[in-house]
């Protein structure tokens, strides 16, 4: 019993940092509607800046002073990011900003590597709080007790700020209707900057406060971001008390999980999140998101049309070029094109459900990796012929998508995104931890295609045929009555229902189709590489696809394909350099700022300006 209580206290202490980071994210999302992936980076910066300051400043005052200063410093950095990057793209399509924040992650990662080096830093002990106190005979670190004592005051201070001060009132008003706040004479630009700075400062404080128990390393950003999103979603987007309750819940569960069910740790919080969202779709203390409550930003959807003669001619020319490629290209270039086609199909499948269906999935890698694993497992365990195993890739992924979709489709917006993320984490942890079947992170190897395909040129044509075929199929579906129904459900679910469209059913079928196409890409992938590892199921893989869809242009048809080609090529060249993350991050941020409608969308606009009377062919 005493041991259990001590464990509980550890969980409570861990909740402090988590709550700080999560409340910052929640605040930023509530006002700016930005899903800030870079929030974990501010937490990491807090840890590194905190360590550095604590080395410089001595004693009690130094330790606590360093923590306070760290928050202020990270808040300043956050304000800088907001002013330089995000302020320029508030009017871009919703969720476009997350691409920019992804660029920020990459930049901060490499800057941290440059400044602090690759070695992990151990956090200093808090002066005067080095030992343990005995509670019911169990040792509990003194610093843990202090953290537990501080947390309610942080909650109280934040609650006071939000409910009792003018700034808090303005923040809540802007959460509901930014434009009206502006019309009443409040400069929203600075309000947004202020909120972003405050949210970042909270993340920085979280990073600094956990130093004595944790430390600082370069993986902190990605390690915490999953947990932070989970906390914010479980608590309810924008609810501070919700974030507090959820932080405690997740931290305590984690401590017990580590002790009693070690193999559960990777997935426990995602299971909890899935359960909460299925029972309470808007989190424990969240409110239902009312459509249009926050005011639509950006231009409305423009209708999409099939290509005109010029578009068809250009596409045909490109395909002819690709078909003729083996005649003059070397293996290296063909492998690059195979990679591009596989990624383009994967991105096109996400683009289909995201752009046409309006459903932002954060877990699309589950179907790409799921397809790859389905085929690989059959070959690995039962020596199934490649042709048959390959068919299973889209089939299994489609079925998986049907199952996951059945749970997720009842939610919408960010909550839908988070539930897909939770399920993809489940699939990932299955591949990672069910070692007897999947061999864990050793991966499945020796998954080669059948003899007639087992060379670069035949496999090149195989990939080209199926990849392009898959992309064309998706395009065809978009222009079919089913595609119209899907778009109707996206733009106006109520009207669509009133016209007799079963919106949820259409969305579910579309989700399954997108999953199957991602699985097809996964099948092509696994036989081209000869192996598959759990990394293909990771969050990072899902994010890669999201990034290229937004980069390419979510409101255009070719966005996914163009974005994937652009990204694969750029990555290919940049990864040879030492600080490639920094460069890639800067490239992403530059594209986001210069082309707020994505590459295709912006090119299309330029084209129309150049030839205003021309046919709508450039998309």
């Amino acid at each position: 019993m005493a041991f259990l209580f001590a464990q509980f206290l550890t969980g409570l202490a861990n909740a402090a940092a988590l709550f700080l980071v999560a409340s910052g994210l929640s605040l930023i999302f509530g006002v700016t509607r930005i899903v800030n992936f870079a929030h974990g980076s501010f937490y990491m910066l807090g840890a590194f800046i905190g360590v550095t300051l604590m080395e410089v400043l001595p004693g009690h005052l130094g330790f606590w002073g360093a923590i306070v200063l760290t928050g202020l410093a990270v808040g300043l950095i956050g304000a800088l990011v907001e002013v330089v990057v995000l302020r320029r793209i508030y009017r871009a399509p919703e969720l476009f900003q997350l691409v920019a924040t992804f660029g920020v992650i990459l930049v901060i990662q490499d800057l941290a590597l440059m400044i602090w080096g690759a070695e992990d830093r151990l956090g200093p002990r808090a002066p005067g709080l080095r030992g343990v106190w005995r509670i019911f005979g169990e040792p509990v670190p003194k610093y843990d007790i202090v953290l537990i004592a501080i947390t309610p005051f942080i909650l109280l201070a934040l609650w006071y700020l939000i409910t009792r001060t003018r700034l808090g009132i303005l923040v809540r008003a802007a959460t509901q209707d930014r434009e009206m706040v502006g019309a009443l004479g409040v400069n929203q630009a600075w309000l947004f900057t202020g909120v972003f700075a405050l949210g970042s400062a909270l993340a920085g404080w979280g990073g600094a406060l956990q130093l004595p128990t944790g430390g600082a390393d370069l993986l902190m950003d990605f390690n915490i971001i999953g947990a932070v999103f989970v906390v914010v979603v479980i608590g309810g987007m924008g609810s501070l008390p919700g974030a507090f309750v959820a932080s405690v819940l997740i931290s305590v569960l984690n401590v017990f999980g580590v002790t009693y069910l070690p193999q559960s740790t990777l997935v426990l919080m995602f299971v909890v999140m899935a359960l909460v969202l299925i029972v309470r779709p808007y989190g424990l203390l969240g409110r239902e998101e009312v459509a249009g409550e926050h005011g639509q930003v950006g231009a409305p959807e423009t209708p999409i049309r099939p290509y005109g003669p010029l578009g068809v001619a250009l596409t045909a020319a490109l395909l002819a070029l690709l078909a003729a490629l083996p005649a003059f290209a070397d293996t290296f270039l063909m492998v690059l094109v195979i990679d591009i086609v596989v990624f383009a199909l994967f991105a096109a499948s996400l683009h289909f459900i995201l752009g046409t269906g309006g459903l932002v999935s954060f877990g699309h890698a589950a179907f790409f990796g799921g397809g790859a694993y389905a085929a690989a497992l059959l070959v690995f365990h039962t020596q199934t012929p490649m042709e048959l195993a390959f068919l299973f890739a889209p089939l299994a992924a489609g079925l998986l998508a049907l199952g996951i979709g059945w749970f997720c489709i009842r939610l919408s917006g960010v909550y839908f995104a988070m539930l897909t993320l939770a399920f993809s984490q489940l699939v990932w942890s299955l591949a990672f931890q069910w070692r007897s079947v999947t061999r864990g992170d050793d991966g499945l190897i020796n998954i080669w295609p059948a003899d007639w395909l087992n060379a670069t040129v035949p496999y090149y044509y195989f990939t080209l045929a199926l990849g392009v075929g898959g992309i064309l199929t998706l395009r065809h579906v978009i222009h079919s009555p089913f595609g119209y129904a899907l778009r109707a459900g996206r733009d106006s679910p109520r009207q669509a229902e009133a016209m007799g469209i079963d919106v949820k059913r259409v969305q579910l079928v579309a989700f399954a189709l997108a999953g199957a196409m991602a699985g097809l890409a996964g099948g092509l992938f696994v036989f081209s590489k000869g192996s598959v590892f759990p990394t293909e199921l990771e969050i990072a893989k899902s994010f890669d696809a999201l990034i290229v869809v937004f980069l390419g242009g979510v409101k255009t048809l070719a966005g996914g394909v163009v974005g994937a080609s652009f990204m694969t090529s750029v990555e290919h060249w940049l990864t040879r350099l030492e600080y490639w993350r920094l460069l890639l991050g800067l490239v992403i941020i530059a594209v986001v700022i210069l082309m707020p409608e994505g590459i295709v969308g912006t090119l299309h606009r330029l084209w129309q300006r150049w030839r205003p009377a021309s046919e709508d062919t450039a998309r």
Partner: protein
Amino acid sequence: MLEVSAIHSFYGKAHILDGLSFSVARGEVVALLGRNGAGKSTTMKSVMQLVPPRAGSVSFEGRELVGLPAYRTAKAGLGYVPEDRRIFSDLTVLENLEVGRQPPREGAPHWTVAQLFELFPNLAERRHNRGKHMSGGEQQMLSIARTLMGNPALLLLDEPSEGIAPVIVEQMARSILTLKAEGLTVLISEQNLHFARAVADRAIILESGQKKFDGSFALLEKQPEIRDAYLSV
């Protein structure tokens, strides 16, 4: 005080205001009349720079507003009360008023919460209620009071009588006359001719984003063909 000259405003590609010009003098109450879709609300939003005109000029006390963000327009002394009220529904009455609060302004009446509660007694009783728990009429009063907290010199009132119980409309008319007596300049858009005549000194009639009439109500009385052609009475 307000000089609007030859503005053209668009929603996307839809051309809403077509070279509209008019002016409002200090201390005047002017009514913008016209049917649904005539461009009344767009005129309000274009003056406020919420829908910035693509051509033409809006000058306020000699200062050009086109090109300014809406918050600067508000700071210049314009107060905007939107047609759909846009109350912050999760905020209480007092909090809604706080959002609108701006420092006192020279040449414009200065409002305090207490004075506004005198002007709209219903709000005083509901000061701790959330916006979403109030009736349409109360929300309209709150929206006006919230804008007055910014101490505007010119008030833009977009269809204040729309969707409100008749007894409240009368109360609203009295409140607007009080505002006029305080020295406030008001531009009000209306479909309710009776209401407009009760509060305004002058009428401007819009149709398809163009001005069709500009003059006193007495003059309008003498030209029933204009009333019949452009107002649905």
